[in-house]
């Protein structure tokens, strides 16, 4: 034990990200958490690679299914590997994450959205209409 281990310390108000909360479980519970996380992540990865090559799903729906699986797997990674939880002592980490997700969504969805509309409104580049000065 040294001064960085604050388990069981009543003054220990917040936890940082990545901090395991297996206070009573110890090594066994810690390993179990990672094994469960690995199992779930492997399952979701296998499903994603399977769906990509299959005809079980309607073609245009495959991309949506893949994104859903990816979001689920990112959730699994956050909970089981990075130990980001919804516990009250994790509020700061969750709020920072929520802000990050907001910015990422604005950048990604916004770019794709705007550029798709821009493409729609432009003339096709090949074949026609040479530009006039």
């Amino acid at each position, binding site marked *: 034990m040294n001064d960085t281990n604050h388990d069981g310390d009543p003054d220990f*108000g917040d936890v940082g990200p990545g901090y395991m909360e297996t206070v009573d479980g110890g090594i066994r519970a810690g*390993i179990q958490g*990672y094994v469960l996380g690995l199992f779930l992540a*492997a399952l979701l990865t296998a499903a994603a690679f399977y769906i*990509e090559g299959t005809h079980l799903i309607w073609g245009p729906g495959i991309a949506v299914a893949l*994104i859903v699986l*990816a979001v689920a797997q990112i959730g699994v990674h956050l909970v089981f590997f990075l130990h980001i939880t919804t516990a009250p002592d994790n509020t700061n980490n969750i709020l*920072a994450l929520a802000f990050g997700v907001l910015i990422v969504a604005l950048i*990604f969805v916004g770019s*794709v959205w705007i550029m798709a509309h821009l493409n729609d409104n432009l003339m096709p580049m090949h074949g026609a209409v040479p530009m006039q000065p």
Partner: protein
Amino acid sequence: MSVSQALPGTHRRDMDAYRLRHGHGGGHGGHDFPTGHGEGGPAPRHVVVAYGFWIFILSDIIMFSTFFAAHAVLATATAGGPSGTVMFNPANVAWETTALLLSSFTCGLSAVATRARSLVWTEIGLLITGVLGVAFLVLECREFASFVARGASPEASAFLSSFFAVVGCHGLHVTAGLLWLGTMMAQVFVKGFRPDILRRLLCFNLFWHALDIIWVALFTIVYLIGLGR
């Protein structure tokens, strides 16, 4: 000067372990301190360090989101060159994913060993993590080399420029992570589980797991959706 500083360590802590204390009638400035502003003073060093590193990781992910957005926009701009459907090899991507997912797992196991203060198992966990990370990089470099050999170099089209940018940026992060991993192994070996070393290990764990999260987005958006485009 708030009341919380005037009354350090009062008995109220025992009644509300999480210090939520909402709605005690005192209003603001009364007795309802939000989480993280307890009377125990500032948060412990390792919480502050890990939180700061968490902010860095989130900003890094925002940086990646710009690369992802560029790739999503340019994915069909092949300029008559090869498209992702032709170039991507799902088996290779599956092996890369396996290597990185397992390395994330062993990195977590080394964190469990660190928690148990086992020097040997911490080093073994980090070593396996590093070997799997190198395997990932080798697979990725082979893929890049085969792309260039088949004429699909970054300058061939906007699609390939954005592909090499986003995948290469992740590869550079893995490379940096491997260098960090090597120094962490040396530091743990020489200096032992000192508080500062433990903080660095925690940050390294966060970094390595975050790389795997970015890879999940990568193999989904770039490779799997690209294959079906």
